[in-house]
């Protein structure tokens, strides 16, 4: 069974990469959308901000869809337990994602109710960003599980302080992604405002990250022996310090990469804390869903590995191609 363990580990890494890709990419468009009421004051500023994410958000959301599909394919028990167990929370995620998706298109075609659709866009994006972190926080911190791999808690079990801290950490990181993307894609007053938002969010992220790493090391003492945890801390704070310098030099292109770097650190720490668990049981470690007791068969894992390892580089290749088509500053009249 040595062989299947290798593939189970590979799939843990691949799903980690898919979720990280989702967090970084959809992160910036959720972030821009959530910051819309704060960054965009005039109508054309809002148009510019939405134009900066309009051509790419669709593709970004597919990282989540593929991540979900990959979780289903590699670890169906984890997919089944989390999605059914966190039922109401998942429904809220869906409602939030529906509103953020349609409200951009509705706003463009329905100027009379533009402010309503802007609220739906910002609210849906912020709620989704928060809930993703809360969900990840719960599966890492642990939830009550039954002997039949079913969730044993309630909706309110999900709202404990540690998972909520994860949620706030994720939201702060996503807002920073959004603000730094806005700096890169805009000019003039709007860019000045985005610089300011990036500065504030950098400090918020610094405070939240300290709390986050502290809670992780206290909750999972074994992390103190894990080199990845230290790498993660270095990534996050190197990113944040880089942000501080780039903000001082008004370097509009570097901020987004530094923000992403800092986000990768947060993710890496979560991955290091979680491995090899998928859903940690808070009521006894032998009840946890791990990559070893939740996976599909070797043949499925192998087939999927072939598809993913050939397919994802192609996806990344044409995604970069399309991003390059739309590089440069966004303009308010980019739509149609």
């Amino acid at each position, binding site marked *: 069974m040595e062989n299947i363990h290798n593939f189970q580990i590979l799939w843990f890494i691949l799903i980690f990469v898919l979720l990280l890709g989702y967090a970084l990419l959809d992160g910036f468009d959720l972030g821009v959308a959530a910051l819309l009421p704060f960054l965009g004051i005039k109508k054309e500023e809002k148009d510019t901000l939405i134009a900066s994410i309009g051509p790419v958000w669709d593709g970004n959301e597919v990282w989540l*869809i*593929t991540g*979900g599909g990959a979780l289903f*394919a590699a670890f169906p028990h984890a*997919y089944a337990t989390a999605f059914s167990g966190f039922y109401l929370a*998942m429904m809220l995620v869906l409602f939030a994602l529906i509103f953020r998706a349609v409200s951009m298109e509705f706003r463009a075609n329905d100027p009379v109710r533009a402010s309503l659709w802007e609220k739906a866009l910002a609210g849906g994006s912020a709620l989704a960003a928060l809930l993703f972190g809360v969900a990840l926080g719960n599966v890492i911190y642990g939830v009550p599980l039954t002997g039949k791999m079913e969730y044993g808690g309630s909706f309110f079990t999900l709202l404990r302080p540690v998972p909520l801290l994860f949620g706030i950490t994720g939201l702060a990181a996503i807002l920073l992604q959004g603000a730094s993307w806005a700096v890169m894609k805009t000019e003039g007053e709007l860019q000045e405002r985005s610089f300011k938002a990036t500065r504030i969010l950098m400090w918020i992220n610094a405070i939240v990250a300290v709390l986050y790493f502290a809670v992780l090391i206290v909750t999972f003492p074994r992390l103190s022996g894990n080199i990845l945890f230290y790498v993660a801390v270095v990534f996050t704070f190197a990113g944040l310090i880089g942000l501080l310098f780039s903000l001082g030099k008004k370097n509009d292109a570097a901020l987004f990469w530094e923000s992403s770097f800092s986000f990768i650190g947060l993710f890496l720490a979560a991955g290091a804390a979680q491995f090899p668990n998928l859903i940690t049981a808070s009521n006894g470690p032998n009840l946890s869903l791990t990559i070893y007791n939740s996976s599909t*068969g070797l043949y499925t894992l192998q087939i999927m590995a072939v598809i993913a390892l050939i397919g994802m580089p192609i996806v990344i290749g044409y995604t970069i191609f399309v991003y390059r088509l*739309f590089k440069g500053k966004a303009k308010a009249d980019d739509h149609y």
Partner: protein
Amino acid sequence: MDALLLARIQFAFTIGFHFLFPAMTLGTALIILISETLHLVKKDDIYRKITDFLARLLGLIFVVGAATGIVMEFSFGTNWSEYSRAVGDIFGPILAAEGIIAFFLESVFIGVLIFGRKKVSPGVYWVAALLVFVGGHLSAFWIIVANSWMQTPAGYEISAAGKVILTDFSAAVFNPSTVNRFLHTVLATWITSAVMVCGIAGYYVRKGLHGETARTMLKIGIILFAITPLLQLGAAHSHAIQVINTQPVKAAAMEGLFNTTRGADIYVMGYVDEAKEKTYGIYIPKGLSFLYNFDFNSEIKGLNDVPKENWPPVNLVFQSYHIMVGLGMIFIVLGLLGAWLLWTGKLYTAKWYLFWLPFLIPLPHLAHETGWITAEVGRQPWIIYGLMKTANAASVVVSAGEIVFSLVMFSLIYLLLFVMFVLLFVKIVKQGPAAS
């Protein structure tokens, strides 16, 4: 109501609503590809206007489809977790493959199609149109694979623990119904968009709006409207034979056939009395047997071959199937009529014909929805035909109250989406190609 029934209602409602949009996406992507190819070849600005106009509509259609599609992917975990646990080995990889191979392609390049006209060269724009078309159809392929595997499972073994284990990926992908169902579904989407474009362009031409652009759009639409229902007749026939062969119970329900019969009748319309096990209506004697293999006396299996507990709701399957078939026949007649008018040069002045075109727009939707009801209700009580019952597939930890909440929310949100979609669709149509 119990949680199982609520979960089924929620799935039926959310999938039925979702399908309206991909059904328009695929055919619209086809017409955009045709128009953009003509634009590239003929260098005529009329085709650019048609493409840009349809791309605006596609933007609206696609976004509602994507927003309601993610609900479906979540729903296997949220509402059908026991199903997900049992079939993760096969169903999971198919959904993941759909994301990696297909949906990324469609979603990344649709951004270029909608926002890229001024940013990229005509050649790159054409490639984007091609890749949206290819990505959309690959996406449909994988989703049809997933559903076809539930109809005619293949390439698996059952483990000692009762789990489905994948043994042959290509056998699972190309299971006995995949190709038939893919062709049947794709043609349905092409008909849907052909009728949609005919309806819009027919309205413009009748009102004298948008001149040559509207006439060209109508011409493309009418040609597709003439061809696609005829192709569908062939694809549907082949699919029906396959259902008789691989899912005889569903086939029997479609025609309300209770006893295995040599020389089975085919109904034009009718009514099934499930209690008395009788079917009434207008029928062609021995028609079903004849269509099956061109032998009036071939044997068709009846419902009584299996225990009654394994029957689907017969009358519902019968009625939805016959509505779909009837609409298909109407499309053939109206499409050919349009082609004849085009051929004889009377199309642009045939106000009586143009008047009715916009009213046809909802009909292909009715046809594909009733087709899906036939396929999905006809599979009951199984979630995987012959292998797993729907009753054993629902999530065990999700309560009826929770589903009531989500169902009410979906109803309200989808009502809002529907109203907004129709309003904005009409608005874009009223602005027309000139605004592009």
